[in-house]
């Protein structure tokens, strides 16, 4: 959920295609490494900052996503951008010894923190760890029953490519759940949220992680992420059926769901 970056250098007058990195424009081929720097930097403090920033509510958002996943014993689950393994830990117990959970993340630092955390909890037998780019998932077609992505999609350079890739690896009948920051539904909440994001959050980042700039980027990247309806449209473009979303905490976060039939 938290983001960070070190010494980002926006491109200056270049013909190369660009994309956003927070409110800055950077060359598309730079974004992945910039995001990688972000997560290399925050990996160690990731869980603490998540709890602080959301006042623990991120645990309820993730729990709600798991409730909606319908995961059963024996199923195969892919947790993309799984970070420090919050969802994977629960999925591992739900699928049991006959099932399997793959924790995928593009960032090795995050993957290592997640792996250590899960192993410390005794979760070893049915979890695979894969360093993978969501835009080009290294898995066979029609392989997973459920794919989840919590607070990861907004950091992907080409979000549509990621959704297409997920659609390919899902089994027919499988479902995708994307939990991501979104647009608050009320104007007053939106103003309050802006104040919190742009004024309090960076100070909190400075105080705890000694990195205010990173948390400024977090607020910016959330504002640049597609709103609820746009993301739903992207699901449909990728081929998903019965797409819907549910706003959580007044739309600060939304859970999008789509099925592959």
């Amino acid at each position, binding site marked *: 959920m938290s983001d960070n970056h070190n010494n980002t250098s926006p491109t200056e007058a270049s013909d190369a295609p660009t994309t956003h990195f927070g409110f800055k424009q950077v060359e598309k081929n730079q974004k992945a490494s910039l995001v990688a720097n972000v997560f290399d930097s925050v990996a160690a403090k990731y869980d603490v900052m998540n709890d602080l920033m959301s006042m623990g*509510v991120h*645990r*309820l*958002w993730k*729990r*709600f996503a*798991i*409730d*909606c996943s319908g995961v*059963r*014993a024996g199923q195969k689950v892919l947790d993309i951008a799984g970070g420090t393994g919050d969802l994977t830990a*629960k999925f591992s*117990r*739900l699928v*049991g010894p006959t099932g399997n959970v793959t924790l995928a993340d593009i960032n090795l630092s995050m993957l290592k923190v997640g792996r250590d955390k899960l192993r410390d909890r*005794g979760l070893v037998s049915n979890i695979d760890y894969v360093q993978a780019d969501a835009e080009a998932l290294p898995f066979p077609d029609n392989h997973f029953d459920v794919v989840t992505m919590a607070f990861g999609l907004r950091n992907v350079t080409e979000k549509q490519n990621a959704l297409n890739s997920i659609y390919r690896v899902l089994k027919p009948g499988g479902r995708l759940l994307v939990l991501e920051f979104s647009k608050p539904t009320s104007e007053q909440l939106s103003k309050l949220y802006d104040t919190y994001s742009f004024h309090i959050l960076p100070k909190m980042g400075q105080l705890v992680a000694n990195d205010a700039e990173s948390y400024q980027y977090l607020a910016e990247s959330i504002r640049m992420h597609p709103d609820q309806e746009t993301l739903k449209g992207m699901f449909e473009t990728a081929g998903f059926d019965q797409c819907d979303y549910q706003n*959580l*905490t007044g739309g600060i976060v939304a859970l999008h769901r789509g099925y592959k039939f």
Partner: protein
Amino acid sequence: MPTSALVSAVIETAANKILALDPDSVARMASLKGARLIAYVDPLPFAVVLVFSEQVDVLALHEPFQDTVATLNHKDCCIKTSLDTLPELKHINQLTRLIQQNKLQVEGELAVAQQVSGLFQQLDIDVEELLAAKTNDVVAHQAMSWFSAVKRKATGALSEFNKVASNALIEEKQIAAPKLAVLHFSDEVNALRDDAARLDARLLQLEQKSI
């Protein structure tokens, strides 16, 4: 904030904390590994799912009862009941009666529900031992002795108060009826009901004869 997630989080935390207080619960839970108990409790707007592994995971399920029943496997049990009936489920020998009265609907493996009920009923928590681990044996023993004495005195005082209140209401103020009078009144009501039923039957007979 998703309320269902909050409710399931509270249940999960409480259940695991309570089970952790009894070391024997690990062995009792072994037979439940991989089992699911799904409970639709009216008026909760969602079902609560208990999934057993090394611990209990609690999920909120937002699907109708019939859809859930259609997907049960051999280690799943799905029950539908109400909040009022829930305390009665402690008595496993009452299950048949509750089912006959339509107060309880059970689908899937009934043994799972019975084992879950047993898991919590057989909890044997040694509070003094737990307290001793946090403080020391003497403090724990003194605290428990003090607590037992207070409990004994409180129970005695409550019983005494009940007697005094009962005397005052029945004998002195005569606001409530004595137990014997209530029983006598009940008998008289029963006798009157029987008489009325007999008279009704007699009238019916007479009506049929006159026709």
